[in-house]
């Protein structure tokens, strides 16, 4: 396959970036998208050009490192698929592909396609956990968890923290990410004692960072490689409302 790539190149956080064109003419359909970029980078290095920087690690769709807007869609055309799991068989010979970094105020560009997503860690730090010290746990079977809650909690817990939801949102909101954690922990009996404060504190932290507000557009769910349900956001709103009515306040 012969492809024309137009890739966002930006040397450093403060540098002005621009789209640059590259042509690759030996792309195989069974290559992954990142392998296609590896091939490009090998060529660039040998031509004494700076290779394209991009975050990636597991290449199995689970670590959440890879993050590219491909032809205007976060993670590209295949539903429920991270960039690393996208294969070139979904493109056709002669295609032009635009590749950009996540575009969101909360995720500033570091270099080329690499962005700084540490704001997500800040949100988790604000309460995305159950406060249990090592060694203080009761016997695992002491508290049964009904299968439906366990399964729903799992569905929310599969979030990989890639940030596609924020990149796709016209407001740059992180509601799907925050609500996934609030839903995961809030559905389990172990998560009840901190449920109200967790929701309030995580939401307050998200608002304090550079994320926008949620207006129920739903683009986040459309691009989410793990298909985190939109209902998570309703759950978050429910928990925050309940907590507020009960008089809970953020720290």
């Amino acid at each position, binding site marked *: 396959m012969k492809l024309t790539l137009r890739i966002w190149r930006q040397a450093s956080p403060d540098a002005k970036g621009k789209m640059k064109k590259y042509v690759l003419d030996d792309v195989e359909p069974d290559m992954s998208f990142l392998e296609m970029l590896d091939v490009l980078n090998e060529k660039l290095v040998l031509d004494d050009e700076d290779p394209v920087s991009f975050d990636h690690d597991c290449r199995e769709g689970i670590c959440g490192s890879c993050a590219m807007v491909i032809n205007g869609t976060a993670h590209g055309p295949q539903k429920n698929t991270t960039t690393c799991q996208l294969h070139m068989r979904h493109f056709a010979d002669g295609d032009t592909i635009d590749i950009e970094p996540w575009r969101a105020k909360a995720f500033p560009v570091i270099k080329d396609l690499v962005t700084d997503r540490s704001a997500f860690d800040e949100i988790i*730090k604000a309460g995305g956990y159950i406060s249990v010290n090592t060694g203080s746990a009761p016997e695992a079977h002491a508290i049964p968890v009904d299968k439906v809650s366990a399964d729903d909690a799992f569905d929310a817990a599969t979030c990989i923290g890639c940030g596609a939801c924020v990149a796709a949102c016209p407001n740059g909101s992180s509601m799907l990410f925050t609500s996934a954690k609030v839903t995961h922990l809030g559905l389990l009996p172990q998560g009840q004692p901190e449920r109200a404060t967790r929701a309030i504190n995580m939401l307050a932290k998200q608002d304090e960072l550079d994320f926008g507000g949620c207006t129920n557009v739903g683009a986040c769910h459309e691009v989410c490689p793990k298909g985190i349900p939109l209902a998570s956001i309703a759950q978050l709103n429910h928990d925050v409302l309940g907590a507020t009515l009960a008089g809970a306040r953020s720290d």
Partner: protein
Amino acid sequence: MSELQQEPTATQGEGRYVVGDPIADTRAPDSPIGDRWADRKFSARLVNPANRRKMSVIVVGTGLAGGAAAATLGEAGYHVKSFCFQDSPRRAHSIAAQGGINAAKNYRYDGDSVHRLFYDTVKGGDFRSRESNVHRLAEVSLNIIDQCVAQGVPFAREYSGLLDTRSFGGTQVSRTFYARGQTGQQLLLGAYQALERQIAAGTVEMHPRTEMLDLIVVDGKARGIVTRNLFNGQIETHLADAVILCSGGYGNVYYLSTNAKGSNVTAAWRAHKRGALFANPCYTQIHPTCIPVSGEYQSKLTLMSESLRNDGRVWVPKERGDDRPPNDIPEDERDYYLERQYPAFGNLVPRDIASRAAKNMCDAEHGVGPGGLGVYLDFSDAIERLGRPAVEAKYGNLFEMYQRITGDDPYEVPMRIYPAIHYTMGGLWVDYDLRSTIPGLFVGGEANFSDHGANRLGASALMQGLSDGYFVLPTTVADYLADAPFEAVPDDHPDVVEAVEATRERIDKLLSANGHRTVDSFHRELGQLVWDQCGMARSKEGLEKALDRIPSLREEFWRDVKIVGTGDGFNQSLEKAGRVADFMELAELMCMDALHREESCGGHFRVEHQTEDGEAQRDDENFSYVAAWEYGGDNQRPVLHKEDLDFSYVHPSQRSYK
């Protein structure tokens, strides 16, 4: 410890190394095996809570072992500095573990017990692990599940609301707890969340996108690390009272492996060059169920969880070179070779045996798919028996992953699988306290060598990482810190300055080569060489060939590697180059270890040492020891220290899964 005691004989590697003093684990109490951990916990000294915040600990790596250790030490009140090269601690490669985590809970009442988990693990490791460590692992497994459930890890449950389990290779009980096919992710997020809680509490200082490039040893003690800030290229030093390495395994020496692209040996190798012994480097695990290679551009291999072997049946066509589509091959023309050769365990034989059997089938031209490097893993029976929804609930995400990568639908067509490098049992030598041979340097998780012997059983890596991180290191590090705080080390201490200078020099040297080959091209060549000669089957001839080639390849690398850009900013090629440089050195030690070990055991299969029916032939008489290698100096021969293994509770026998 480096005095030369005897010259090696010809059969031991022909003067490529020297034999030093034996080494021993002096920390495990001398009590009955079931009491050892309790006794050690009681004898371990404690640190007054008020003094803990004055003591500092560096933890390198944020996977299950590192994340759990940093969080737990933070909870205890120590001042912890945690490091990872990824952009967030949540992305460490533990996240990719699929299948599950073992624990001797015996919730199924199927005859499981701490002793049985201990027994299975020692046997599964082909009698090359240390009994004390393995027994502790089995004991602690109970606490791990409790801890993770309390953290909110959404394990699979039954309709009763109780935890579900499944069985895994190498065992006949059902003791593997799982969260669909994403157990590693859920356990890691539990540890990550505990870590973030401590970061919020101010006990842990987090340094993401920061890579350890050297260990700082002052007055014989590990006192800090040299790092490169991957964001801006700054070389920095971090000093502390103790250093814990939980930096993972070295499977990426093979270039193609199931490891994440960034997984590397650098932290462990730098510690080795500073004096820590490296044990059993040749013990590498080949995972039997990975997606086969599809082309030369292949950058990594993807594993399909071993749990698939619970319901999937492995087969090849009986006819050599039969290239009919799998569904056109009638039942009586299929060879379910694992069920045929190992009727007792069938498709659930341990990983090393399943891998080698697949290789043998492909070598005998029964392989399927491109290049004949694949065997079928067929779910049609399971789908018929359980119904598609049940199969989907168990393995849905794995099937999807397979389809995404290959374009084939495993509900309709059998999967094609082939073995790939997955895990490394070898690692830095540690005693029962997980202390390396450098005082103050502890090693946890895959980075150490201690619990899996020559072969790791499925669902045991997560167990070991969390055991080390949550339960073992916090106890044993406290015992060490009871003597702290140690004398302050100034930033301009000669040993600190030397380590920083050495790091800078190495980076400058890499950048100034400005040759003709990319880092990846060297890495691919090294990987192919190690895979061919020190992979699933090893021979004296092949290993010697590799040992002759590696030094020249290394020399070419330093002379001819091409890296664009500078060291002063974000530079991913430079990061890769530093890691490959260390793999180039490790590869030689691996081959040396494989050559010296004139026996077959677990993942180490020497073609010269096999039974008549092709099974691994151990030599307990001569090789029932841990090979702990000391760095001999640049271009000097390494020094081999042997730790004799004692089996008082599980009598070594020829493993049989027939």
